[in-house]
């Protein structure tokens, strides 16, 4: 890789007097031997799939595959339609709905974009699409912010992990929220340093997030967590755009994430044996669902 760390990426962009986006595209073209047009076309397909998932999730009342969730997006949407959520900004409402919608589509075997993973698939699309619809942003800008976000996520993938089984949910929803914040800062015209800070602030605040899904399914707490992590990204973007900086530099935050992941016991890393999964209710639900499945 041309850049292995946030420091290197930033350095490269500084010396060449260009954007993070340009360095990320140049690196991808070199490493994957792909033409620029082709890359953009592929990203566009993924962006469109994000929109489709959100639309699908908003269009109907969805029951999850395991049956733990029933129409969460629908409930929020109804409430907004009835005018009960006017205390929130329209952007915030959009983002919450879009995140829940995608996560519910995922939990019901619908088509989503695993960005960075299926469990965390609602976060970045919600922020990206929410902002774009609210401010009528051009497709080109959306594609570019997606590329930058993925370029930053890649550093975590290569230097640490993006797997809940390896490092808990901080690696899935934590990184998802960080990527969403980076995309938001870029879409709102932030400078390179601010984009990286958005990513860092967001990830840092979700360090230690465990993976303890009830019955081992990507439903509880995953679906609602997507909405929380998406709005969390908005806060990170707001701070970064105001010049607030993480005291701990980005690369050290990633190292901390790795270390915390190693220190987390296996029961909190996707094995559904600790935390929420091990509560009385969690166990009862697991018994019901898995018992039923085993009788088939």
């Amino acid at each position, binding site marked *: *890789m041309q850049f292995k760390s946030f420091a290197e990426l930033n350095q490269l962009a500084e010396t060449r007097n260009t954007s993070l986006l340009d360095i*990320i595209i140049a690196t*991808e073209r070199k*490493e*994957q031997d792909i033409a620029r047009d082709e890359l953009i076309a*592929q*990203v566009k*397909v*993924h962006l469109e*799939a994000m929109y489709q998932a959100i639309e699908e999730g908003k269009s109907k009342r969805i029951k*999850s*595959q*395991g*049956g733990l969730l029933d129409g969460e997006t629908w409930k929020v949407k109804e409430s907004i339609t009835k005018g009960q959520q006017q205390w929130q900004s329209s952007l915030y409402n959009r983002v919450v709905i879009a995140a829940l919608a995608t996560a519910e*589509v*995922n*939990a*019901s*075997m*619908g*088509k*989503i*974009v*695993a*960005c*960075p*993973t*299926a*469990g965390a*698939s609602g976060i*970045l699309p919600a922020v990206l699409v929410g902002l774009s619809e609210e401010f009528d942003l051009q497709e080109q800008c959306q594609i570019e912010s*997606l*590329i930058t*976000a*993925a*370029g930053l*996520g*890649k550093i975590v*993938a*290569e230097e640490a992990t*993006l*797997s809940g*089984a390896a490092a808990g949910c901080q690696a899935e929803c934590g990184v998802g929220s960080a*990527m969403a914040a980076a995309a938001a800062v870029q879409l709102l015209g932030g400078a390179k340093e601010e984009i990286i800070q958005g990513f860092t602030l967001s990830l840092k605040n979700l360090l230690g997030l465990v993976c303890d899904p009830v*019955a*081992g*399914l*990507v*439903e509880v707490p995953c679906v609602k967590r997507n909405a929380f992590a998406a709005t969390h990204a908005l806060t990170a973007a707001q701070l970064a755009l105001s010049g607030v900086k993480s005291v701990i530099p980005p690369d050290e935050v990633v190292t901390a994430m790795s270390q915390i992941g190693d220190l987390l016991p296996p029961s909190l890393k996707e094995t559904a044996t600790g935390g929420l999964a091990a509560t009385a209710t969690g166990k009862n639900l697991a018994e019901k*669902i*898995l018992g*039923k*499945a*085993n009788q*088939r």
Partner: protein
Amino acid sequence: MSTSIMDIMGPVMVGPSSSHTAGAVNLGRMVGAISGRPVEKVVFKLHGSFAKTCQGHGTDRALLGGILGFKPDDIRIKEAFSHAQRAGLKYEFQTVDLKGVHPNTVIFAVHTIRKKANGQSTNNTVTIQGSSRGGGEVEITKINDYQVSITGHLFSLWIVHLDRPGILGEITTLLGRENLNIASLINDRDKEIKIASTIIKLDQKIPTKVKEKIKKLSGIKKLHCIPTLK
């Protein structure tokens, strides 16, 4: 090769889980390619986490969809049961308790019927074992009693042949003559019946004429080309 940013903002897939859904589809696809389609009947024996959370993750539909040739982003996966019925594919799900294997492991007993040119048909059953290793990555670890390792990253040739001296040399010479580069070769044999199984991974797809030439070598029992998962 380094990670592509497309893998960070993807893949586009049917949810809910890359290991229990997308990986299961990919396992089914590999198995369908190895056994050859159409498949008459499959018995799925699910182990570990696959057995436990099968229904909630749609692992059953995903495996079945894969056998039918669906890709991980195919929305028909959710309705795989009815698609299987329409295609005349019979299936059964069982659970097993295996020792020392990855928690997301499944054994497929696949039954196919091939019609020959003379109107007769042959019945075939092959048993294939594989695991979903996370992020949609899979590995086929066993075909019948032979240990193999097929991940779908490269084109693979699976050859069952007599365990006679020189046969591997003849096969690799044929490949070399066509400029087909061998990435790796795994050989496993059953000494008692003097039959061996060889998996050759290649950088390119193998042309049909080369396949035919290998088939004509003495002692070749079976030859299958296994495509990549792309």
